[in-house]
């Protein structure tokens, strides 16, 4: 819906076990700028691609994506291109909410392309994943500060992962003009223009946790206080960042 306050759009995905060893998608509803496509399945996994039908989000827009993997489902969600936060006519920041739920014995791979914070944009991202005790999750988030050679916009991105009703990870990154001081300094980003997180939650980590490891000078894998690991990486650009996170995925097997 287009209003003077910007575009509001919600996309919903629900994945269920189809009873024949595969995954069905009883809900696959895009809206406006958030279009969804089912792509070729890989084994028991259903694959969905988020296709941006417009640019954005622009200032004042509010996008929401919900993905629910029900018991026994295996869902993989990617996006066709990077999301670019742009300045808009409407007042106030844009909002992008992602709400994920993963049931027992279900698996979600949430692997969208980068979020690029363009000059003069203002975006608040809120990602919440709610997991059952027996859920599996691979979640990647990558933020790029500005298009090539451009100053970044203002970006706030909070990522919360809850498992069995308890907080497993709660992190917020704030950067760009007007962000609290020191965001580009030696404690936070230190001039790096790409930053990413990879969260992997697996019930079997209860028995055997991967050990903390350095992945080069600017990335580390660390066990969380639960059956999960987080890879945090900073890099000069999106390409370097992706290479590091891809290596981490391979290393975790």
């Amino acid at each position, binding site marked *: 819906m287009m209003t003077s306050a910007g575009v509001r759009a919600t996309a919903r995905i629900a994945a269920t076990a189809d009873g024949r060893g595969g995954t069905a998608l009883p809900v696959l509803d895009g809206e406006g700028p958030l279009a969804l496509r089912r792509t070729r399945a890989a084994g028991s996994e259903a694959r969905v691609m988020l296709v941006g039908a417009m640019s954005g989000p622009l200032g004042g827009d509010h996008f929401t994506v919900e993905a629910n993997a029900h018991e026994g489902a295996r869902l993989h969600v990617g996006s066709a291109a990077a999301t670019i936060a742009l300045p808009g006519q409407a007042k106030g920041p844009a909002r992008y909410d992602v709400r994920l739920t993963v049931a027992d014995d279900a698996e979600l791979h949430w692997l969208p392309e980068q979020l690029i914070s363009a000059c003069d944009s203002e975006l608040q991202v809120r990602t919440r994943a709610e997991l059952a005790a027996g859920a599996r999750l691979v979640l990647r988030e990558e933020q790029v500060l500005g298009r090539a050679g451009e100053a970044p916009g203002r970006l706030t991105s909070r990522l*919360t992962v809850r498992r069995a009703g308890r907080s497993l990870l709660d992190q917020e990154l704030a950067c760009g003009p007007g962000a609290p001081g*020191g965001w580009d*300094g030696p404690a936070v980003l230190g001039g790096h223009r790409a930053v990413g997180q990879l969260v992997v939650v697996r019930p079997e980590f209860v028995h055997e946790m991967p050990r903390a490891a350095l992945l080069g000078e*600017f990335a580390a894998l660390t066990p*969380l206080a639960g059956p999960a690991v987080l890879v945090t990486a900073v890099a000069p650009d999106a390409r370097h960042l992706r290479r590091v996170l891809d290596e981490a995925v391979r290393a975790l097997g």
Partner: protein
Amino acid sequence: MSRAALLVLADGRFPAGGHAHSGGAEAAVKAGRITGAASLEEFCRGRLHTSGLVSASLAAAAALGLDPVELDEAADARTPSAALRTAARRLGRQMMRAARATWPHPELDAVARLFPKGAHQPVVLGVAARAAGLGADDAAYCSLYESVSGAATATVRLLSLDPFDATGVLARLAPAMDLVARDAVDAARRAVEDGVDALPAGSAPLLEISAEAHAAWAVRLFAS
């Protein structure tokens, strides 16, 4: 509230083990990211608004009487680095010993029983503030000041930085500390109403990455 008790708790000589930790400064100095007073100030400013705000809000919430177990879980979720969680619990255990000896209180005893290996330091600091008759704002200020003064003191040792310059950095950060302390207490009060998810969750990627690297060094001057 007792202003004198606040000075006792905030004093760098309070025997809670903080002097052994650099707040990430040792790794940042080695990596060449802190080279003098200016970069130390930027480092501390980044700490203040991320892990500093988180710690201060946890301390304020504990001082307001929120459940230490819930706060400790919130601290775990906001401290993804395993090395930093270990350091925070070790510091929490040392703070507990010092606080119980200084201000004996049943709430400190209860937290010590619940967390024999130590609760996160800001949570213990907040309960200690309660035991000392201090308020949420006192706890937030103690926590914030500690989050930058430790890094400044360590940099004096690591870089032979002039102590006058390091103190100048802390003085220039004072207005930012006032703002962050207010935000931390506001967030703690919201958490009383809405639960611990209302607490801030600011993260500093370079602090987290370099904490893992630092923990693996064979020889280091500081524990974190």
